[in-house]
């Protein structure tokens, strides 16, 4: 495996260079073992397409999303304002992230606090690269396989991004199968609103199990996700149903990278 090239904004600045796009890695992408694989897969694709990007590295901090959703507005705004200060200092214009929660927060909630950037989800950037001919997508091991896409709430309903991830899946030469609840009607994986970090309230089922059942109904070979938290929830759901031998849960970036043996 070739070495990942991951410059930081600080390194580029020291060299007097500027990145075209800031890759906002997010906490999950930085620290969660499963999500780190998504981060790396995405970086491989960025490297392959020769995208001039950089990360904030140790200067990045939580976007504040879980704080805001759970009502801690003080903490959210402290996070937001200090992140904005860092990003504005680097004169960031465009941001890409593989986390729909960071995506939503940076895109919709930072502008009011002084952070105005063009923010895209990684599936949108990959789609752009594909359209510009900077990236090719091959089917590889995914050719002819059945893939279902689980819409992350903060990408889909919250920001109306439904097509970019689907177009990428179709480029894999795979059969995209839709769950009965998809797009604007997609069911949450159960992790949003800071639920990821707490035990669910008393009920008769966990939400990720309910959602996994939706996915199992269409008998896919793969469940594609575009969010590190959805990924965890769906992976747990598939394990709970003892289907991990038959169904793999992968981020779209991982699929594209794997298909090209990156």
């Amino acid at each position, binding site marked *: 495996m070739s070495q990942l090239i991951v410059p930081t904004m600080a390194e580029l600045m020291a060299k007097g260079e500027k990145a075209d796009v800031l890759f906002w890695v997010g*906490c999950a992408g*930085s620290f969660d073992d499963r999500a780190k694989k998504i981060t790396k897969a995405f970086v491989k694709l960025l490297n392959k397409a020769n995208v001039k990007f950089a990360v904030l590295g140790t200067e990045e901090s939580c976007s504040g999303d879980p704080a805001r959703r759970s*009502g801690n507005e003080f*903490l959210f705004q402290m996070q937001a304002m*200090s992140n904005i200060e860092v990003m504005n200092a680097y004169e960031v214009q465009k941001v890409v992230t593989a986390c729909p929660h960071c995506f939503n927060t940076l895109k919709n909630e930072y502008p009011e606090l002084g952070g105005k950037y063009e923010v895209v989800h990684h599936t949108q950037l990959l789609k752009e690269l594909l359209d510009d001919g900077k990236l090719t997508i091959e089917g590889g091991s995914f050719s002819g396989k059945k893939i279902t896409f689980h819409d992350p709430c903060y990408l889909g309903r919250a920001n109306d991004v439904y097509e970019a991830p689907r177009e990428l899946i179709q480029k894999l030469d795979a059969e995209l199968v839709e769950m009965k609840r998809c797009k604007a009607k997609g069911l949450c994986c159960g992790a949003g*609103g800071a639920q990821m970090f707490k035990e669910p309230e008393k*009920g008769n089922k966990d939400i990720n199990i309910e959602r996994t059942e939706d996915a199992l109904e269409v008998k896919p070979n793969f469940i594609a996700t575009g969010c590190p938290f959805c990924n965890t929830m769906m992976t747990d759901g598939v394990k709970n149903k003892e289907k991990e031998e038959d169904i793999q849960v992968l981020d779209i970036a991982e699929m594209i990278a794997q298909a090209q043996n990156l």
Partner: protein
Amino acid sequence: MIQQIVFLVLLIGFSALFTVNIRQIKKNINLGKDVDRSSNSKARWKEMIRVALGQSKMVHRPIAGFLHILIYVGFVIINIEVIEIIIDGVFGTHRVLSFLGPVYGFLIGSFEILAALVLISCVFFLTRRNIMRIPRFWSKEMKGWPKTDANLILLFEIVLMFAFLLMNASDSLLVAMNSSYYTVEFSTPISQYFIPLIGHLSEVNLILIERASWWFHIIGILAFLNYLVVSKHLHIILAFPNTYYSNLESKGKFANMDSVTNEVKKMLDPNIDPFAITDDTTPERFGAKDVKDLSWIQLMNAYSCTECGRCTSECPANQTGKILSPRKVMMDVRDRVEVVGKGIKKEGEGFDDGKSLLDSISIEELWACTSCNACTEACPINIDPLSIIVDLRRYLVMEESAAPMELNNIFNNIENNGAPWQFSMSDRLNWKDE
């Protein structure tokens, strides 16, 4: 003449009562905090026309949506007839619009068909509510008054339609009899089927039935108008302003708390002497504990809710057995603002019954929300239960420090290491070499 006076008294009386009640509701809605949603009026009109007038979200559930449109169209168009009834009532005329000639006959005929469609739809809705066990009509918050309310509305509409058809049936019989007062011919595609029931009656009895139906129809409508103010059926009016003022931004964007922005700026600005600040910008309360802490739009949302329960049936927490129900949140807000409104009317601005919204909406409900926006997406008139849930959470967290323990942990972690987990910020880029 007597009839005209009685009619005028009833018309003015009921209208005045309605005005008073609507004013009270407006006052109650204005108990909410001010929020400016006046911008972008073009897009707002469009949204209202699409969602409220055009019922675009109703048809997401095709059967209920279609039947609802029948009732809605029927209701709006048949009300043209009410204009005639009012003119007739005031001036003592009979079917004053009949000068329209054949058009009039056709109009009445089409009203009859619509009335029949409304009737069928209402009967279907009653069956659906009471016999088919659709879960969202049987959940906890629908017991008692909400269920009665729903059935009363449907029965009301059925009876009103019957009165309209019976009036036409008796009228057409009287026309056929060459009865002196009844001279206007019109088509009777539906009411002709009532003729076997009353065809054998004498002229006097038919006049009696015709007059009784006429009076019943108009008094029924005036009474129904006043029933709206205590009923979930108020949505037939409020759906319009509610969609006009609805959130047009990305659903994921939560309202920024400017009061917090001021505080945070002070905290982050090293040049400000914290002791020198004379603070008058800090609000009484962060987040919402009671209805007065919510915005007027959120309170209007509550009055607009017709308790259809689409939000609750789409809610992932509710579907998996949690007690959270976005519909219940809206119903609790309306119930509470009614109590507070009445209290203020009686005791003045200082009204305090020692209770708050948090007495009816429990902490367990609030923390079950995943903020997924399924409820706001599902609502046929753009009600936003999520914003209320978040405002109540804000109160719990910022005023009461009453977040679940796990969340307090992530708050600490975010504050200290910039991530919800206990990892050191300096390890944030380690992934690239692993």
